[in-house]
């Protein structure tokens, strides 16, 4: 597989960080970095990783099924991850998640029909003092009220249509 220069450089740095004879050490981050570009861990990705790291497909499958950020199917363009764990729960995280479900018409791990948004209820993301918290892909949003959530969705929609105009 061919990746962008940026991803390829990242993968090279990663492999250089493994001690001699321990190529497999790169496996978890490599899968995540490739997923960020490709969108999901596809059979081609597994094959690619196997040949780069000299591991068996089974060993990769085991790892893919273990880590919650690795997925077989692509998420939406904007993957919304809302924390409902205890600190966020105390300040309205669960209600925010339910609001998001209604607003987008999808549930946990759902993707909107246009592929623009996907939703996931996640465990603590390290933003406990600034809840309710969510991540859009890797970007953090703190103290998110339902109104702020609606504004965020509109803004992401606008960004997207702005981008796809010729």
């Amino acid at each position, binding site marked *: 597989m061919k990746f962008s220069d940026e991803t390829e450089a990242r993968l090279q740095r990663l492999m250089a*960080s493994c*001690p001699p004879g*321990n190529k*497999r*050490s*790169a*496996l*978890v*981050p490599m*899968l*995540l*970095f490739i997923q960020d570009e490709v969108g999901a861990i596809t059979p081609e990705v597994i094959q690619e990783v196997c040949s780069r*790291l000299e*591991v068996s497909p089974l*060993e990769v499958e*085991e*790892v893919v099924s*273990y*880590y*919650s*950020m*690795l997925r077989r199917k692509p998420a939406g363009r904007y993957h919304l*991850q809302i924390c*409902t*764990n*205890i*600190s966020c*729960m*105390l*300040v309205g995280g*669960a*209600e925010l998640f*339910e609001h998001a479900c209604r607003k987008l018409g999808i549930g946990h791990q759902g993707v909107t029909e246009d592929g623009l948004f996907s939703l996931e209820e996640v*465990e*603590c*993301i*390290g*933003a*406990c*003092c*600034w*809840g309710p918290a969510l*991540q859009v892909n*890797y*970007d*953090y949003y*703190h103290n998110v009220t339902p109104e702020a959530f609606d504004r965020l969705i509109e803004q992401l929609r606008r960004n997207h249509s702005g981008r796809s105009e010729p």
Partner: protein
Amino acid sequence: MLHPEPHPAEVLVLTRRFRLPNSASIETYLATQGYEAFRKALTMAPEDIIEEVKKSNLRGRGGAGFPTGLKWSFVPRQSPKPKYIVANADEGEPGTCKDRLLMQYDPHALLEGMLIAARAVGASAGYIYIRGEYRYLIEILDRAIEEARQHGFLGRNILGSGMDFEIYTHSGAGSYECGEETALLESLEGKRGVPRLRPPFPATSGAFGCPTVLNNVETFCAVPPIILHGGLAFANLGTPKNGGTRLFAISGHVNRPGVYELPMGFNLLRMIHEVAGGVRGGRKLKAVIPGGSSCPVLRAEECDLPMDFDSVARAGSMLGSGGVIVMDETTCMVRAAARILRFYAHESCGFCTPCREGTRWLSQILSRFHRGEGRREDIDLIAEIARNMLGRTFCPLGDAAAMPALSYVQKFREEFEAHLEGKPCPYEEVAVHA
């Protein structure tokens, strides 16, 4: 994420650079005594570095509070194998968000702490194992590593000392269990995060089967000030056997949630009422989890206590990762317990039966309770399942789930009884699926 000004009660040691312009840059770091502790460490005998850390009474900030100097002393001096330094930046304990700030605002402090550890034990490479969600911090750390290399603090023959050392970031991909030190090492080696049998401990057989120092991010960040100003100065900031300051993340029902650096032994009630601005809306305090979700909950009347490892243990809970979760009188304790146990059931790696089954049962029974379908005998069943898990699981995650579960039914039995016989949750009109 930072309040514009620190609270007057704060003692700024690890966070002293946080509010400087470009605090993450090496220029700011160097202008504020950055890498001076490492330069000093290069002139010290390795044993003396460890001795200084022992004197500081620094105890691990990842949760267990193990004395850091003692841990370093377990690494064999002579070893035919290479040695490694691993920073635990997995920060997954609910209620904990302080390592994130350290890496965002002062990444060089982490690098310098790891360098000093490397000098003390003779390590040749270091890994920062960081949770996958913290991608932006990987960029910040990689930049800091590059800066440090350009300034000659990393690489070969560092500052002409003959010491070689490299630091790499290594991303996780979503797993709380990978914060457990041996599961982390498995993940670092490209495997599922299933823990290893201990002993051997990482100090003798860690990363790639080699002697390894593994510490929390905040633990490493405390090392430069200890070396620079002496272990005793750090020790004196805290209470006996609990040296220094600690970053407390105060979340939940307070007026000013945030991460505050306070001396070890700071009173918990003062933390809530003074530092964090008191309970939101002038409501009454009901309960506090003192150190992240795996710690037993404290009732409000138990909270007049000094926050150090030993005092909180005497009060029947744990200082853990310093995540102080505050709950006011409107909180449904059944819902809180159900949400926390749902987390542990989700994160159990499934390797051993008491944890895999126990966390699932506890989660199911607690959710059932919160839906108003609890039976009287379930209250005792929760306690019984939790007791049967304690001490019988392969790694501490089992205890981390059982201890809080037990504490909620023991300390808030009346709230469980209020949910019996189809009664709706007294705290909400609609029971939110917990």
